[in-house]
């Protein structure tokens, strides 16, 4: 799949943002006034910034409000609704907590739940795609949730929780690489099932057109896959494993925490790029790919 920068930024930043908001809604850390304001500012900036950047890849951003209408069937619609609801509820909670010094625990709790639900619905947009076997698996929501909770805990200065969830994310990511590399074949997709031409050796003789098209650009992206192995190791080690070890092995001061955040965000961006760039869509079969 085409690794669109707007989508990579959106899923990474809003994942972090909603992760942070989850903890703020649970009153973790227990702070007030300007300190709390700063925490909420970062949380909203990341989540809203992510949401805005995701509208950049739409053909008609001015109609985006329509995307809230199909919650009965569409995960993208559900994501939009959860995101708006989470931001409204936590906005109210933050307003009361910062300016009126009243923390309504129930409101914060609902906001936290909605934040996690938003991350889950985001992950389900990818997980539901049977056409992309690498994504179509329970490890995808687990990965998105553990990254979001781990990263959010890191920003919310909850080092032990952060370490625990980044450990889960490390293991899930490693498993997702391993399982994802096999799944396309395991599902039995091939040029033979795609065309129904069964008896004999089969190959693409001629594509339908000499140039490129939307399908090839959007879904048969293959540029840069040669760097995939190196990026995998970099992302896994520096973005997840090293932060996990640092968080779990010692008391983390401000400077070290800052360094871990930079490592982690950089690593997750690389991993998210791979999440798209490595994903094989079955339509590639018709163009002689993945065979």
């Amino acid at each position, binding site marked *: 799949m085409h690794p669109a920068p707007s989508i990579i930024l959106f899923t990474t930043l809003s994942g972090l943002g909603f992760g942070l908001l989850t903890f703020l809604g649970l009153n973790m850390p227990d702070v007030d006034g300007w300190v709390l304001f700063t925490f909420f500012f970062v949380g909203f900036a990341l989540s809203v910034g992510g949401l805005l950047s995701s509208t950049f890849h739409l053909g008609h951003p001015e109609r985006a409000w329509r995307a809230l209408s199909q919650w009965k069937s569409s995960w993208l619609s559900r994501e939009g609704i959860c995101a708006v609801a989470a931001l409204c509820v936590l906005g109210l909670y933050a307003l009361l907590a910062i300016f009126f010094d009243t923390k309504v625990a129930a409101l914060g709790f609902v906001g936290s739940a909605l934040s996690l639900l938003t991350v889950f619905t985001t992950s389900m947009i990818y997980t539901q795609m049977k056409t992309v076997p690498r994504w179509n698996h329970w490890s995808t929501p687990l990965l998105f949730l553990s990254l979001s909770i781990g990263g959010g805990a890191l920003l919310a200065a909850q080092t032990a929780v952060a370490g625990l969830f980044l450990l889960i994310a490390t293991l899930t990511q490693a498993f997702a690489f391993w399982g994802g590399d096999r799944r396309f074949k395991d599902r039995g997709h091939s040029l033979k099932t795609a065309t129904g031409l069964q008896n*004999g050796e089969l190959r693409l003789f001629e*594509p339908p057109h000499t140039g490129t098209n939307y399908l090839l650009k959007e879904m048969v992206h293959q540029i840069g896959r040669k760097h995939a192995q190196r990026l995998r190791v970099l992302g896994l080690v520096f973005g997840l494993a090293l932060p996990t070890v640092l968080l779990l092995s010692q008391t983390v001061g401000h400077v070290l925490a800052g360094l871990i955040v930079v490592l982690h965000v950089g690593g997750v961006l690389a991993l998210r790029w791979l999440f798209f760039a490595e994903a094989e869509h079955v339509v590639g079969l018709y163009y002689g790919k993945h065979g």
Partner: protein
Amino acid sequence: MTQLPGPTPKKLGLVIDLDTCVGCHACVVSCKGWNTENYGAPLSDQDAYGANPSGTFLNRVHSYEIAPKDAPAQLVHFPKSCLHCEDAPCVTVCPTGASYKRADDGIVLVNEDACIGCGLCAWACPYGAREMDMDAGVMKKCTLCVDRIYNENLPEEDREPACVRTCPANARHFGDFADPESNVSHLVAERGGIDLMAEQGTKPVNKYLPPRPKTDAQPEAEIDVLAPLLSPVATEAHGFLGWLDKTLDKLPGGAT
């Protein structure tokens, strides 16, 4: 609504005969023509006369080579457009309600006024049947020529999809798959019509007729009908030619 309507009373779709398709791309051109001039946003091209042209098409023809072990290799031309699936994943993923499957005849359409161009439906389609129009920013797909098949302003014989009407090889057939007596149902039954990528669970309405096996290849001697006319007239040379032949053989480097 982007929920699926459940079983539809009519199931309109196409049968594509891989045995007779000659790969002329006439259906591709007629589809582009009709759908640029009629329903919805025109099918735009980008850099059409430049170095790197591309454009929106609702129907494309691939070509595959199939080499059976015990028979000559075959070239199979493979037209592909929306299969108007019964369990259309492209419809249910749509967040806006722009994508829908018609409850009365099962045609899958996009309401271009509601489409935000998110592209999710194109991801959900296993067959590459949906293409975003880069000019209009909305999703385009085969409409089964919904603006022809019910169009009473057209002569009766033109009330079928443009691709079907155009195909010079008669490789495309249009009809109602819910009716077991329809032309398309008969073709599927007689020729063993198949679903593409059935393991995706989309239940396509369109069916493909596999190419007939070419197992009756003629023995080589019979194929070569001109052989008797071309065989050498004289095997041994006489007279002047015979003398020349022998003399040349005697020269150094001649036959031994």
